Structure formats: C-alpha cells, structure tokens
C-alpha cells in the first residue's frame, strides 16, 4: 500500500516538476519518506548497471546509456548527474509501472561513491563500473580509504565489477568479487614522470611498498608495479590502443573508435563505456561504432564567442584537484594565444576559507603557456599567492575579486579566454564575460 502511494505521489510530483526542471531529486526523496523500502520493492526486467568513481562517472554513464539506446534498447538512466539517493529513486520511480515493475532493457545508474551504500541498501546492481578513485573534496569525503570502505559496504558478493586496470586503487576494489578490466596502453601523450602534483598511489595500496611507474596517463593512472609485493596492472579484457591524437581515432580490442574529446581520461572513459556495454551483451563492434558518434555534454565543455575572441568554459569540480588538472590539460591542448580565467570560491557547502587544495593542482604546467591568469571570486588573492609560488611573473597574475568587475580585467588580456570553474559558478561568470 505504502509502495503504491509512494509511486503515485512520486510520479505526480515528477510530472508536475518536469516543466520547471525541478523533478530530479524531490520526487524520489518524497517517495522514500512515504515508503522507505521502495527501492527494494522494484522488480527489474532488465540488467542494472551502476557507474561510480571519483571522476568521469557522469560522462561514462551518459556514454553507456547513449550506446544502449543507439542499439535500440530501452534504458532508464539518471542523465543529469543526479547521483544521490533522491536522484536514483526519482529515476526508478519514473521508469516504473504503478505495479513497481521496471520494464526497460537496462537500468544505468550513476551513483555517488559516498552514497553508494545507502542507495544499494535494499537492491543491488548486477554490474558496477568504477572509473577511478582519487582524493576529492576532502572536507566532505574524507580520504580515498574512507571512500573504499563505503564502497565495500555497498558492493554485494553477486555484483560483477568492471574496473580500470590503469588504476591501482580502484582496480583493487572488493577482491573477492568477479571482475573484468579495461585499460589504455601507453600513448605518445603518456609521460614517464608524473606531471601532476596529486598522486594518490605513491605507495602500494596493498603493502605500502614504493610504486614504480613505467608510464603515467595522468595522476596515478598508468602502468604501475609495486617494488615490494609485485602488484602490477591486471590483465585487461578491453584494451584501448593505437591512439591518433590528430584525428581522435583509437582502437578497442582492434575495433576502431572515434572521439572529438581526445584527452587520455576521456579515452579511458570511452573504453569503460564500451567494456560495460559489451559485458551487458552487446557486440563490441556495435558499441565502438555507437560511441564514436557520442558528443560530450555541452554543459561541461562549451565554446562561444566574446566579441572578437573565442572563449571556452571548462568545468571542473572545486576542491577536486584531478578534475582541475584535467581542465589545465584542456587549456594546454588549445593552439594559439590564450588567457586563463579562474574562479576560486570558499569550500563548497561549508563556506570555510581553506585553500590548501590549490597546492594539489599543478598550475606550474601553465607557466610560459598563457598570456595571463585572471583570478576572481572570494579566494582570488590566495590564487595569486599560489601562482606567485608557482613562478608566474607578477604581470601575468591579474586579480579582480569582485566578479561583477571581471570583464574590464579580462578585456585587457589577449588570446582565447579559457574559463576554469565549477558548475555552480559557471552561469554567473558567463553572464559577466559575455556582456
């Protein structure tokens, strides 16, 4: 009875909120208040795949849903990155019949790694894909070990894992579970030394021995081996290789794939998506063909014109150094003169004034590559100090703490405008810059 009422009111709220974009979390939250066991009461006709990890889970889950749909399957999917309990509940109740049956061929759920144990308290996915694990917003998450503990509580013995064979940390999740690995062979853009400051696997996650790397794709993702216990990249079932960075073509198990978004982490995410869909039973060739027409969410990487200058909005997550390092990689890949605009806020959700996380980001990589770095936002002067210590000459550091005055400062710089910020602040910056 409670289940019926939860579904009815949840669906009603979902339909009413939809035109206003207010239907991602609330309906699920309300339904769970009415029927706390709702998630356990659904009956699934198809397979459930969950996607989690520190970075790239939204893109990867979106790619998976895209491939499945393109191959003619029906898919229930929390497309907007609404990956907490309310968002997942909303997705399921919207897909469900009034009888609690979810008829879709596949359910693809992006799941926040911290909330996974709550989301999967009453039901379990058949497959779990973990893209990677990094330090991320330490004020909220605790460290990587804390996240692994939470994931271990969420992963039931029956779950088949799809794991990143380039990541010594997430690759070692729930060792007793059945698993399949994907990985990316060394490319011409991989490096012998770690180009980033953030490196969460300097010691072996199994035995604390010093890790050695034959190559790095980025941060601690690459070709690793422990000097003490011998822990080494596992055998991959899905191998990305032959990356041509000019065309954006590469292969997965010999099958051609194309992407316009040629960063190593995106190639890995694409490989993860193809691996997941193949595990779900689709032919590899079809998955590779389908994913080649996928377009990265505009919201996260958007190009536009400001007067006579090109501008690009590159979103990352605040206090997530790996995500920020990737934004820097985007900047470096652009040809020609450019200026970087960075918005530095206080700590999300708590408002604390800490800026320690700026020292986990390799701003040094931008040295000599940009006309100027413009800092704005409440902690803009802390960015100025970070840039000074990185070695930027004073004339290349431009600070305007007041966002509303930013345009005048940006107008005095040269080249393409690369805006590095997070989703929360993107809109206000866009309004100011494009005035």
């Amino acid at each position, binding site marked *: 009875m409670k289940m019926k009422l939860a579904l009815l009111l949840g669906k009603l709220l979902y339909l009413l909120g939809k035109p206003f974009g207010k239907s991602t979390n609330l309906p699920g939250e309300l339904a769970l208040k009415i029927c706390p066991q709702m998630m356990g009461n659904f009956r699934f006709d198809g397979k459930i795949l969950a996607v989690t990890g520190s970075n790239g889970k939204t893109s990867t889950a979106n790619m998976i849903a895209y491939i499945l749909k393109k191959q003619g399957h029906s898919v229930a999917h929390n497309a907007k990155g609404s990956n907490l309990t309310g968002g997942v509940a909303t997705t399921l109740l919207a897909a469900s019949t009034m009888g609690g049956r979810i008829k879709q061929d596949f359910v693809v759920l992006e799941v926040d790694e911290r909330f996974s144990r709550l989301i999967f308290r009453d039901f379990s996915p058949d497959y779990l894909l973990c893209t990677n694990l990094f330090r991320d917003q330490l004020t909220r998450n*605790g*460290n990587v070990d804390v996240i692994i503990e939470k994931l271990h509580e969420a992963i039931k013995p029956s779950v088949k894992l799809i794991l990143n064979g380039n990541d010594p940390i997430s690759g070692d999740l729930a060792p007793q579970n059945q698993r399949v690995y994907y990985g990316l062979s060394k490319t011409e853009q991989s490096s012998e030394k770690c180009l980033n*400051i953030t490196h969460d696997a300097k010691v072996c996650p199994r035995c604390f021995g010093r890790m050695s790397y034959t190559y790095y794709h980025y941060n601690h993702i690459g070709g690793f081996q422990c000097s003490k216990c011998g822990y080494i990249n596992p055998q991959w079932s899905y191998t990305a290789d032959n990356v041509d960075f000019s065309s954006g073509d590469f292969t997965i198990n010999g099958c051609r794939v194309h992407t316009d978004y040629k960063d190593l982490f995106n190639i890995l995410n694409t490989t993860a998506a193809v691996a997941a869909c193949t595990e779900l039973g689709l032919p590899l060739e079809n998955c590779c063909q389908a994913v080649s027409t996928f377009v990265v969410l505009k919201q996260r990487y958007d190009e536009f014109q400001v007067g006579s200058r090109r501008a690009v909005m590159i979103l990352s997550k605040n206090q997530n150094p790996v995500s920020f390092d990737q934004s820097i990689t985007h900047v470096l890949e652009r040809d020609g003169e450019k200026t970087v605009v960075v918005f530095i806020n206080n700590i999300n959700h708590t408002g*604390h*004034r800490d800026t*320690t996380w700026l020292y986990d980001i390799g701003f040094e990589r931008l040295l000599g590559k940009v006309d100027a770095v413009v800092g704005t936002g409440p902690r803009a002067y802390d960015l100025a100090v970070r840039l000074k*210590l990185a070695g930027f000459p004073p004339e290349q550091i431009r600070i305007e*703490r007041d966002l509303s005055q930013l345009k005048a400062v940006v107008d005095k710089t040269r080249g393409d405008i690369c805006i590095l910020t997070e989703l929360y602040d993107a809109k206000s910056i866009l309004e100011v810059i494009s005035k």
Partner: protein
Amino acid sequence: MSKVNILWMYDDLLDLYGDWGNLLAVTKGLDAMGIPWEIDHKSLGDQPDFSRYQMIYIGPGKARNLAEAAKDLACQKQAVLDAVERGVVFLATGNSRLLFGKSFTGADGQQIPGIGLFDYTGEETGNVFISDILAHPIFAPETASYGFINRTAHIHGNDRDPLFTVVKGAGDGEIAGESHEGNLYRNFFGTWQLGPLLVKNPEILKELLRRLVGEAFRDWNTTAEELALKLTLNELQ
C-alpha cells in the same frame, strides 16, 4: 649559510592534502634570501641520518598509512628526539602530530605507540571535524593567523608548549573558546592547521626561517601573502 638540507619524511606515505605547499613556501623563502637548499625524501625502512638535516617536515596522511609510519618512526625514536633537542627545525602538520604524542588509537581500535615527545594521546574517530581557525602564534601575540582544520582524529591532554592561542574556531580540545592549539617546543612546530600554514601566514614562515638560518635571515617581500591573509581574517573577525 652554505646550504640548507631539508628532509621530507614519508613523502610517499603522508601526502594528503596540498600540505606540501609548506615546503614550497620554505624553499621560496630560502630562494629569496639567496640560500641554497636541497630536499631529500625518506620513507619506510630508509633509516635517515638525522644529523645531515637542518629541517624535517612530516605532513598529514591516511589513517592506514599513518599507522605504518608510526611503526617505522618507533625504530628511530631516540634519533628523532635527539634531533629535536639539538634544535633541528621540525614541521609536523595535520594528523602527523599523532606520531609525536605518547600513543594513539587507530580506526580498528589498535593502540599505536608514538615517540613520546609530548604527553598527549590520540584517537581516530572516523568523524570529519572541520573548522576555520583565527589565532595568535605564541611567539608573536600581536599577529593574527589563519588556519584550517580538517581531521578525523583527535588528541587529548595536550597541555604543554602550545603553538597558538586560539581566538576563533576550536583548539586541540575542540571546545569552542578553548584557548590552545598545536605545539612549539624548541624548534618543533606541530599543528593541525592546514592552509598551507606557512603559505597562508608569512609571519609564521619568517619565524621558522629565522630559526632555520639564524643570522643569514633577510626579510623579503610577502605583500601578496599578507593581502590574501588580511582578506581572510577580515571575514573571520
């Protein structure tokens, strides 16, 4: 001054949260004074020769890693205590402080011995505690400092040789209005405060460097750092 030798202990094991910025600030300060420096990295099983170093830095780490570091440091207990007594400059930030107390209890309930430089004991609780801290360093009571605490461990019984008098935010006891945080004993600086502490507080950096290089100390321009600190303090005061 010929050269400053710095030892970054457990750089691979205890490296959690941008805290290495403290070392960046130290080396940039030495650069500004024209003093050459070198950083050595030593970790588990390396048994460093402490007599070679004028400064030793240990940063915060994950609970599991900290327990490993504690076991390793126990083998070098006397050498570390002797180095502190000799006046070697130490900077221990975040949960690495636990290594220097009597003992601490890990997340699994296991009791891990510290080297006993201080009388406090520690406890890993698993609960995240965060706080902005407005304080005065003991050696400069007129100077306002900023730091950020982010910890899941707590220490009890730290009632000797504080580094800070806390004005706002919680001290070592986590009781609002409690007055002390950290330790300063001889040239050992220990604190939960991140920021990174020495980047965020040029006065503390300069005090540490005065102790490190003695008469070779020369003041340098830290206007940018002072401005960033002032804006933060304005919001807290």
